[in-house]
């Protein structure tokens, strides 16, 4: 792993809290994911009409990226072609799969909808974030039982070392039934060691992920 890649920020949305770079920015207990996502959208005065069409996984990934990238001006420092998004989770798109299944389970009420079906693919959240931020680079969605920091570190390192990406949004975005959790990291190749920036390595990713 080359030393010049760093974690320049992270955003976690879980336990009904929004944390960015160790700071608790918002908390809204006793809400389900839909209510919590809407509360985040209002609290941070986000204005993006497409948000309301997204499924839960899309909303979670979108909000995480939105708050992670806020005021970091990465579009000024990196070309869209060299910015990638690598996401992982355990339940793939099962949350929306179950919704789509509801629309076809009864032949007398058979209303499959393209607006739901398109979200039965986990990588669509990558597309949503790319559209919002004009990222054209590498995108990959991995499904694994639990978040695997060393896999993420290994995989991103070779993308960065081989100059496939110079900047990457990577991490865990999970929705399954009532459970949700996202932790997204901003990994950059060309940054000095300023305050709040840490070396990009598996142990750091793990530490941040476990700092619930």
């Amino acid at each position: 792993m080359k030393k010049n890649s760093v974690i320049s920020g992270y955003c976690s949305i879980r336990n009904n809290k929004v944390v960015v770079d160790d700071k608790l920015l918002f908390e809204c207990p006793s809400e389900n994911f839909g209510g919590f996502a809407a509360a985040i959208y209002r609290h941070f005065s986000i204005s993006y009409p497409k948000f309301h069409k997204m499924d839960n996984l899309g909303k979670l990934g979108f909000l995480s990226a939105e708050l992670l990238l806020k005021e970091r001006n990465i579009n000024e420092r990196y070309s869209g072609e060299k910015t990638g998004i690598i996401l992982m989770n355990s339940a793939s798109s099962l949350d929306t799969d179950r919704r789509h299944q509801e629309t076809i389970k009864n032949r007398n009420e058979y209303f499959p909808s393209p607006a739901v079906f398109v979200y039965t693919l986990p990588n669509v959240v990558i597309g949503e974030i790319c559209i919002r931020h004009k990222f054209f680079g590498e995108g990959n969605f991995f499904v694994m039982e639990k978040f695997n920091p060393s896999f993420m570190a290994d995989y991103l390192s070779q993308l960065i070392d081989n100059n496939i990406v110079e900047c990457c949004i990577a991490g865990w975005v999970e929705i399954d039934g009532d459970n949700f959790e996202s932790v997204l990291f901003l990994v950059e190749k060309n940054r000095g060691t300023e305050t709040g920036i840490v070396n990009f390595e598996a142990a750091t990713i793990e530490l941040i992920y476990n700092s619930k």
Partner: protein
Amino acid sequence: MRNVYLSADNIITPLGFTTGENAINMLEGKTGIRLIADEKISPVPFYASLIDSESLDTRFSSIGEPDKYSRFEKMAICSIKETVASTSIDLTGSRTLFILSTTKGNIDLLENNSFDKRLYLWNTARLLQRQFNFRNEPLVISDACISGVQAIITGARLISAGLYDNCVINGTDIISEFVLAGFNSFKSLSTGPCRPFDKTRDGLSLGEGSGTIILTSGPDASGNDKILVSEGFSTNDANHISGPSRTGEGLFIAISRVLQKSSLKIDFISAHGTATSYNDEMESVAINRAGLQDVPVNSFKGYWGHTLGAAGVIESIMSIYSMRNNILFNTLGFSVPGVTNPLNLVSVPVKKEINNCLKIASGFGGCNAAVLFYRK
């Protein structure tokens, strides 16, 4: 950066249970796509390429009890088994990674129990891992219709970086009511067998398939000639989640990045060619922008439909078959050019020396991928 070689492979579709069987049937002009009237999966008859359940169970019965495995699992196991048996590489050590490429896995089990453990793709991958005594935790890649190409790109990178010596890559998807109803709601299904790049094309045909290929860091001693995987790339259109970019932006960037890495003159392009109006048009734009409009190009979708997460694996394997046997397969279903940018579509089978092949794919979420196979 280490070289990555292609070793054994297998394809299972209605056209056969091996790569060779598929090829023989394809050269005879056969297709697996037919009209299916099965009310269990669709209220109306539809065209698709489905694997015969009885043949699958017969094939599987030498491996395990058909009743104990799902349709998805049986297809994947048959394909991996055949592949593993035809290589001399020991795949049970710590230097081998198993990668599963799929969009929906065991999704047909959802109608009975929406929290069934077997619905989780990582769990499906683990079942396959255990079946073959692969040692490492398997990796699942789910990137819509580019999954298979992405799995090959990812496997090649992990080997090239020295993290593993071998990757066993399986791509599988089944056609269930779930998938059929979804594509139907998009009105993207063809009224007959799909006709890629043709003027009269009116949509895609869905297909079931499983393909397995082994990537390895050293040339395989099994006698296959030396074909390598060069660095591949994925991109995003950053344009629309359910439709390709009109300018072919993402696919163009992916192809350009492959071409920048290689000085080879491209011999053959295996296109995604789903036969939807937008996809084929977009590919023609991207291929022309990359200056590859004179390179012979085909789509395999007319033979076995769009096999989703299996497509990139199966079509790459058949492209490699083309290289090994110096035969270009025609684009079944194509007769009159129907895209605005000119392409050199293969319309009859051609005997030709092929030393490299560019494989491309695009999918929902605006994703695109391109990878190059070449003979050293």
